[in-house]
């Protein structure tokens, strides 16, 4: 069944679809190149910046191993761990745990986001990860 779906579906595509795909791929590439270039112009020490509701609450150098408990007034919490030059969230009070399951981050622009707790841990001055940055 799969063998008949794909060619039949592909026949229904128009030239405009291919143009659209090209534009989208180009956009993704341009955005990625733009962000990489931007990162290349900063050479300071990598830090993990903790933001709650968009306000900076702390900065932690990625070169020092630390464990930080970020606890909020309503009882919600996230535990940030810096290890091996990377930042990760090891525990959190949120229901979906997307932040906990996210792989450790260390690259420029990478972040750990916990939407239910409105927490963002952003990497500043992180290393430029090149092609692998968004797809690993």
């Amino acid at each position, binding site marked *: 069944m799969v063998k008949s779906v794909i060619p039949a579906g592909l026949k*229904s*595509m128009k030239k405009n679809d291919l143009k659209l795909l090209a534009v989208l791929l180009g956009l993704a590439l341009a955005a990625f190149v733009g962000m990489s270039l931007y990162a290349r112009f900063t050479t300071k020490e990598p830090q993990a910046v903790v933001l709650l509701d968009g306000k900076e609450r702390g900065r932690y150098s990625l070169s020092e191993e630390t464990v930080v408990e970020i606890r909020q007034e309503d009882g919600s919490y996230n535990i940030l761990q810096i290890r091996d030059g990377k930042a990760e969230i090891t525990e959190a009070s949120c229901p979906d745990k997307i932040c906990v*399951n996210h792989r450790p981050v260390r690259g420029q622009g990478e972040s750990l*986001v916990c939407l239910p707790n409105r927490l963002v841990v952003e990497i500043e001055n992180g290393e430029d990860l090149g092609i692998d940055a968004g797809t690993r």
Partner: protein
Amino acid sequence: MAKKTAYLGMFTALAFVFSYIEFLLPINLGIPGIKLGLANLVSIVALYTMGASWAFPLSLVRILLTGLTFGNPASMIYSLAGGILSLAIMIVAKRCKLFSVTGVSVLGGVFHNVGQILVAILVVETASLLYYLPVLILSGTAAGVLIGLLSSILIRHLRKITEMEQVGR
């Protein structure tokens, strides 16, 4: 009219089940927001067979149902943002008659992710989330192509319902 209502009910149930299947799949790539968008399959088929005025409430109801059952009120905001933006774009794209079903689906997939990211940026008030945009554009496109190909086959076979759209609602 009664027949259309029955079809709408079936589509809603189907979309709900597709959402459940996606909910069962593990978070795969470790980046928030990456999903297959299987429920979009139902939205697109409904859009092309029953029309925008039926597809829109279908999506709304499906998002609400899914959000209440498998998610939480917080996650529903992102689903709604992504879903409404995605469907609005798809309706416009379909009317423009520039793209095939697959093209419309790709637009839907990409804008679903864009909508979610925009709301997330507003919620956490940090623009750094834009970093995820290239990846989400790519995954939205890939999923859109897949869903689009499948949808185009289904739409062609569901011709009886298709005729309903032209004859007069």
